[in-house]
């Protein structure tokens, strides 16, 4: 059970992120919720590649040749870059929205129906 702990932590992070997106009313907290879900998914991906008694998959000065899987690390790195672009775009939208409406509350909006 203790070896499944990273997967459990990733699931908890995703659930916390979902609560943040659906229940919070401040725009920046919603953006933070998306970032938390991204962190949870990254943790989940990295912990998939674990082999017990494996070292980092780097050939330079490697102590032994039994390594953890390198592909989830590539997937996670790509996901980190994508989430960076997403958060940058969402934060610029928040800046412009604040300039237009003067508040960060999602309840005052003009698009209805």
């Amino acid at each position: 059970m203790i070896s499944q702990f990273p997967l459990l932590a990733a699931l908890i992070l995703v659930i916390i992120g979902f609560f943040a997106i659906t229940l919070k009313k401040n725009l920046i907290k919603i953006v933070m919720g998306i970032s938390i879900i991204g962190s949870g998914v990254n943790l989940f991906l990295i912990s998939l590649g674990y082999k017990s008694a494996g070292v980092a998959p780097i050939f330079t000065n490697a102590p032994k040749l039994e390594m953890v899987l390198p592909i989830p690390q590539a997937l996670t790195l790509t996901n980190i870059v994508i989430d960076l672009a997403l958060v940058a775009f969402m934060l610029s939208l928040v800046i412009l929205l604040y300039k237009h409406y003067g508040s960060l509350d999602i309840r005052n909006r003009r698009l209805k129906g």
Partner: protein
Amino acid sequence: MIEKNKNRGMSRIVKTISFIIALPIIVFGLYVILHGHLTPGGGFPGGAIIATLAALFLVAFGRSGVKESHKEFLSLLESLALVSFILLAFLGLGSTFFRNFWANTGNIFGKSISYGANSGYLPTAGTIPLMNMLVGIEVLAALSLIALVMYTGQVGDEND
């Protein structure tokens, strides 16, 4: 007093020290970019390390230290690095797209080593270090531009 400082940045000591500390940061960032095929890192983390200098200079020099020419230069640098990256991928079209045509040819960045644990020989791995360098330049330009534009507004394209 506070308004004057927010636009003109911090004191002269901070401005001088920020120049001094920029040098080790740039060297460390270039080390991470260049050794991307041997140690963890590569284009994106190395570029992000150098892009923290944008935040440093923004805090030290304030809004009045950011000029239009800085933002236009960064935008041009980013476009050039991206286009060169894709053209480098096109150069492998003799076999396939993105082919590592430079590896094992014996030039700089083209020497061969055998499989297995070694102590890290820099001029190997073909197009990977070249693409790492181009991605590093692109990432540092893009992230610095994001930081500057978020603080000060548009990149002067009212006339396109």
